[in-house]
């Protein structure tokens, strides 16, 4: 059957099960947008293409499916770049469709021409410029496949205007032929056997679960392994939700702003079982002293992660879910739980001695208190999205997360402005869930225009702005390491956020005293509208504990 390019695009999206796309049209996309006019696929009009990419990313993180964003050629496409880089760093399956000038004009600096495939080489898993409509259907199939398999990631497909309008045969069935792309899923049996042996004989084991655990859907296997052998579990920021944080074996998050007991446990362990982590510098601290007495088992689907940052004693390349269940099967028959008993006593002592803590003072509003109240008010059941900075770390520390895909944060790139659009994407994916964006006054202003998107499309996300009047995380570093010289970090002027919310047709309220925190949260939950709470928090509150950049993981300052 003959079809034109744009019809092939829509047909392909339908075949892949896409229900919603996030985008902004432009000159070269008018043919494609004409198809959306009467398509079953929902198009959500964003107010900035960066936000379209973040919304697709938030949708993908909350649902586990590929998120799709669309932007026009030139500035539309370049606006996607930060969003793609964010998704790339956190291995999120996103498909970006960009319009391009007609093939006959490519290379001539035509109006709104940008070489977006060239620009995004480093921030996509793969990208395509489709120059022949005959390639279109195959390319889209491959793009979805590459984005969602192996180590997932964003894929961009650039669509020249003349390719969109050209006609070709639409095939019912096409095969993917990617000789250079064969992800490994099953772990090597010998390595699995060795891992089982190491785990059985370890006396002070600890599991570090990262984002890969969640992507793989390995949370149940992880829990089974931890309970079977009685191994304490810490997660990275990206791994939050891979293991229930209210579980007695949970150590919470490790790393720069992790709990002391997580960091001490890792540093004193004799075996680290790392599942789907990439050992970022925020997690390891000084690399040479990281878990110096421990053997390290590293399970990851991406062979390039093995040995990239830390020395690994036993690598297992493959899908975490497969590998963990094989390990469990190997161990089951021979395990003695008492082996880690003394170790658990020690870990428990650290936990009791160094709990997460902050100082309460009268009616001042402490950010940590807000997050705790939010946790109570939502019974720990909300999907939490964060911005970047102190707000992000307080959210990670105090909002316990017990299930995967419910803590959504830009971990690798640390993109301010991510939260609100990603929350919109998450809410579209999970309309029946409460979605809270924990935000900062700086980050909020980087994509606050998306409140219009939320109101127009009836996407009632809730935004808790921890308003400290500062680019707080940078200010904290200046306070601690630059003699309180607050250069360029005082935000000074901020619009009235309540009026801002109201101007957009959203609900807005302000909290200046501790006693108002709970009722404001409840009001925001109760309204059907998108809501903003302007929490005026203690301006110079710091995130503790903290491992200064480059210091060993157990040289911790603050917070006990």
């Amino acid at each position, binding site marked *: 059957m003959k079809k034109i390019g744009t019809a092939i695009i829509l047909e392909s999206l339908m075949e892949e099960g896409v229900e919603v796309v996030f985008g902004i049209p432009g000159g070269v996309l008018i043919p494609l947008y004409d198809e959306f006019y009467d398509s079953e696929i929902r198009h959500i009009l964003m107010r900035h293409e960066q936000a379209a990419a973040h919304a697709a990313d938030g949708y993908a993180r909350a649902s586990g499916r590929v998120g799709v964003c669309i932007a026009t050629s030139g500035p539309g496409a370049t606006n996607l770049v930060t969003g793609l880089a964010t998704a790339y760093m956190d291995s999120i399956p996103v498909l970006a469709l960009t319009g391009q000038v007609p093939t006959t004009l490519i290379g001539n600096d035509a109006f709104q021409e940008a070489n977006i495939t060239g620009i995004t*080489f480093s921030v996509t898993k793969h990208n395509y410029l489709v120059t022949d409509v005959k390639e279109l259907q195959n390319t889209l199939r491959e793009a979805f496949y590459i984005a969602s398999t192996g180590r997932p990631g964003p894929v961009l497909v650039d669509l020249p205007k003349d390719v969109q309008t050209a006609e070709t045969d639409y095939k019912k069935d096409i095969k993917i032929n990617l*000789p*250079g792309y064969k992800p490994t899923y099953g772990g090597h049996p010998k390595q699995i056997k060795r891992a089982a042996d190491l785990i059985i004989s370890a006396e002070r084991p600890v599991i570090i679960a990262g984002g890969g655990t969640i992507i793989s859907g390995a949370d149940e296997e992880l829990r089974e392994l931890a309970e079977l052998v009685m191994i304490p579990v810490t997660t990275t920021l990206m791994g939050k939700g891979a293991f229930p944080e209210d579980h007695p074996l949970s150590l919470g998050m490790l790393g720069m702003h992790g709990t002391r007991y997580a960091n001490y446990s890792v540093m004193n362990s004799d075996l680290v079982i790392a599942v789907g982590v990439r050992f970022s510098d925020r997690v390891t601290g000084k690399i040479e002293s990281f878990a110096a007495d421990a053997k390290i088992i590293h399970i990851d689907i991406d*062979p390039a992660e093995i040995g*990239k940052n830390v020395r690994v004693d036993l690598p297992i390349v493959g899908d975490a879910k497969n590998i963990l269940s094989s390990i469990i099967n190997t161990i089951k028959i021979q395990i003695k739980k008492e082996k880690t008993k003394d170790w658990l006593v020690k870990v428990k002592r650290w936990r009791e001695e160094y709990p997460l803590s902050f100082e309460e003072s009268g009616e001042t509003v402490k950010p940590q208190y807000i997050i705790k109240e939010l946790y109570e008010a939502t019974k720990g059941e909300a999907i939490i999205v964060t911005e970047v900075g102190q707000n992000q770390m307080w959210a990670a520390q105090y909002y316990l997360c017990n299930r995967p895909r419910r803590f959504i944060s830009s971990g690798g790139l640390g993109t301010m402005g991510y939260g609100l659009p990603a929350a919109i994407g998450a809410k579209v994916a999970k309309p029946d869930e409460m979605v809270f964006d924990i935000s900062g006054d700086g980050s909020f202003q980087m994509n606050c225009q998306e409140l219009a998107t939320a109101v127009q499309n009836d996407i009632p996300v809730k935004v808790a702005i921890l308003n400290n009047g500062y680019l707080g995380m940078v200010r904290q570093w200046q306070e601690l390491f630059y003699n309180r010289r607050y250069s360029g970090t005082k935000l000074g002027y901020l619009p009235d956020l309540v009026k801002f919310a109201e101007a957009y047709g959203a609900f807005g309220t302000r909290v200046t005293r501790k006693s108002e925190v709970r009722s404001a949260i409840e009001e925001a939950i109760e309204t059907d509208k998108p809501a903003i709470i302007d929490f005026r928090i203690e301006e110079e509150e710091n995130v503790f504990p903290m491992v200064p950049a480059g210091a060993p993981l157990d040289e911790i300052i603050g917070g006990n």
Partner: protein
Amino acid sequence: MKHVLAALVENKPGVLSRIINLFSRRGFNIESAAVGETEDPRISRLTVVVAGDDKVLEQVTKQLNKLIDVIKVSDLSSDGMVGRGLALVKVSVDRETMGQIIEISDIFRTKIIDVSPKSLIIEVTGTDEKIMAFIDLMRRFGIKEMAQTGLIALARGAKATTIKKEG
């Protein structure tokens, strides 16, 4: 340490720029890179010479393998290989030096491919060391200009880098 890697890649537009971009993004120190079509026109072969220790080599190999268009990567320097490069060297000549240059060129089994009253173009092929040695000897006569290819290499014996991707 120098390593010679051979990569089979899809012969498509943009593949080379992807690879070059990867090298610069990851901060890999590439001494030379040479590409050309293979016996199968859908596939090109890239030979890269990388400086670095085993850890660097491992990362280069793995990161190359991660590119969708890269089908296979092998480390040729680990086993025996034969490698050749080619240089074209334009040397100044006069009556006096002509004889000397031709003599040296003979020893290196080069070819003189262009002759003019004031210059010769000499084609030298061989290992990096041989080419470097020849160039060094030509310096004193005055090199007007020169062009060099990157090294290309094959494993010795029956072993071959063929299309089925591993790992």
